[in-house]
């Protein structure tokens, strides 16, 4: 897309050179970062292990996979593009309702078709909202994201004929995936389906964030004044990231609809937007695995703590948030960073 943007990231005198000289720039560190590493494989063995170890909890595990996709989508928007949003549930909800309405009202129950449809509708919603969101900065931008989220919530709340309002959307019938695997009572198909979608979306996201486009987003984050000076169209890139995040969120919403065969109005709720933000910063924003780890830790904690004492779950969320901001700015992934660096140093030393 823009082969010169990585230059600006690499240290050394080449970066400051006025004439473009791509051949002299050492891209090796960037290539190294883009290569898969062995701990990643370990992370992806987790869902396989969970299948065997926790066969009773497949529904919860499916929820984790779906929330992980949602967290991933926010990571693209917030962690990489740096757009602070408190209305991200809007796209999750759009995707959920798109998939639900397609199945319930039009009778098209094919799951993959539903995913594609939801992704397209959410992408369209992202495209429509992008100019509005990117117009303001700071508080104005934050308020516009909240406003869009609340508008959609109210719209879904009032359009009871279409969405069922607070009663939720019912009558969603799913046909077997690819005509082969039908959704079973124990949630086995749903689990595998969600994990596979997560894996595919994760690999795509991984490819994107290590591409020149992804690097330019990160550079924008680091130095917002320099990127336009280098001739990068800031708004176009942010808008692209916004639409991409919206698409991912829409797919996550659609998955929730398809695996539960129900859409509740709180897919669009403000709480969901706040919760996913918490999940992301808990894991560590700006890293793809932060989204995954944050989701696993959060949903597990929620399950355990809410089981012990559902009343004060909220207080725990609050305390965790306060603690993160005061003591652990980079979340769980930030906490394991020093170890990773230690590992990397050992390798490079002769």
């Amino acid at each position, binding site marked *: 897309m823009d082969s010169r943007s990585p230059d600006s990231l690499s240290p050394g005198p080449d970066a400051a050179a006025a004439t473009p000289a791509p051949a002299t720039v050492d891209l090796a560190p960037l290539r190294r970062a883009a290569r898969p590493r062995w701990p990643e494989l370990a992370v992806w063995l987790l869902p396989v292990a969970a299948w065997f170890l926790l066969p009773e909890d497949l529904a919860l595990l499916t929820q984790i996979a779906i929330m992980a996709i949602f967290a991933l989508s926010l990571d693209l928007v917030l962690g990489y593009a740096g757009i602070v949003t408190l209305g991200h549930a809007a796209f999750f909800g759009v995707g959920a309702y798109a998939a639900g309405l397609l199945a319930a009202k039009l009778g098209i129950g094919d799951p993959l078709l539903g995913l594609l449809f939801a992704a397209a509708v959410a992408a369209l919603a992202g495209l429509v909202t992008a100019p509005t969101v990117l117009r303001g900065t700071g508080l104005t931008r934050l308020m*516009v994201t909240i406003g869009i989220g609340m*508008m959609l919530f109210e719209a879904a709340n009032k359009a009871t004929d279409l969405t069922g309002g607070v009663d939720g959307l019912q009558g969603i019938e799913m046909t077997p995936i690819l005509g082969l695997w039908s959704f079973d009572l124990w949630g086995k198909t749903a689990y595998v389906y969600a994990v596979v979608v997560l894996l595919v979306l994760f690999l795509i996201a991984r490819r994107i964030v290590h591409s020149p486009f992804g690097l330019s987003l990160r550079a924008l984050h680091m130095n917002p004044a320099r990127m336009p000076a280098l001739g990068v169209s800031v708004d176009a890139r942010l808008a692209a990231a916004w639409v991409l995040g919206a698409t991912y969120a829409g797919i996550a919403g659609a998955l929730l609809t398809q695996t539960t065969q129900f859409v509740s109005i709180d897919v669009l709720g403000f709480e969901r937007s706040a919760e996913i933000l918490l999940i992301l910063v808990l894991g560590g924003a700006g890293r793809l695995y932060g989204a995954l780890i944050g989701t696993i830790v959060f949903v597990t904690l929620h399950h355990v703590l809410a089981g012990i004492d559902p009343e004060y779950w909220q207080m725990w969320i609050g305390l965790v948030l306060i603690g993160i*901001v005061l003591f652990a700015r980079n979340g769980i992934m930030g906490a394991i960073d020093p170890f990773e660096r230690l590992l990397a140093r050992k390798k490079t030393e002769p």
Partner: protein
Amino acid sequence: MTVVFDGIASGMLLFLIAVGLSVTLGLMNFVNLAHGVFAMLGGYVCVVATGRYGVPFLLAVPLAALAAAAAGAVLERTLFRRLYGATQLDQVLFTIGVVFVAMAAARWGFGPQQQPIRLPSWLQGQVTIAGVDIGLYRAFLVVLGLLVAFGLHRTIGVTRFGARLRAAVDKPAVARGMGIDVDRVFVITFAIGSGLAGLGGAVGVELLGLDPSFPLRYLVYFLIVVAVGGSGSIGGSLLAAVLIGVCDVAGKYWVPQVGAFIIYTVMVVMLIVRPQGLFGTR
């Protein structure tokens, strides 16, 4: 006309609570999503004082404001001041955390139910002036709102403290160099903002209700007032609050099938047209 008057009254109430946020967020540039917590605190103080201890309403309201101001000052000293230089995301996360803790605390202390309040008899009922039904309590809110707006406008614009505040906000380093105790100015400002929220929360129990989810339920409304009014502008907040109050009440009265949709639409449209708010300078 009655609808318009009701709208103005609820706008005034919104202004009372949100103007404190306009001060902290607009002047001190601190995104304080926990603002509603102080309003909730004021509400609970008022309810407990009038209901359990039989304190007269007119005494309980200032008491609520004082309690919220004290809580604001303590929180500013201990926690919030660490975040003045932090990124917007940090401020958002931190203050949402405070909201969640406060909601849990309120539920623990008072239970999840709505709190009732008994108004003094002279504030109940309504009078009809020129064909417009005017609730006495709503008239009281309008008067109170105008008084606060005028007082704040004078305080920030005319007094020595106001001058110090504006100096401390614009260039903290220079203000410090001129011998202004910037930290103290910020504490006092924060306390005033929180106290006003407490005041608004106390007089708002009758109209808005009071339960532990209060800070989150009305958070968006407060933020709308500040964002639409333009941060830091008293007049802007007043106008925005009244506009939103009227739109909200009128919308719910005439087109109930659309409901709260109207407010968010108004806000988004306003922010697209004027991203810096009605009277914003930044």
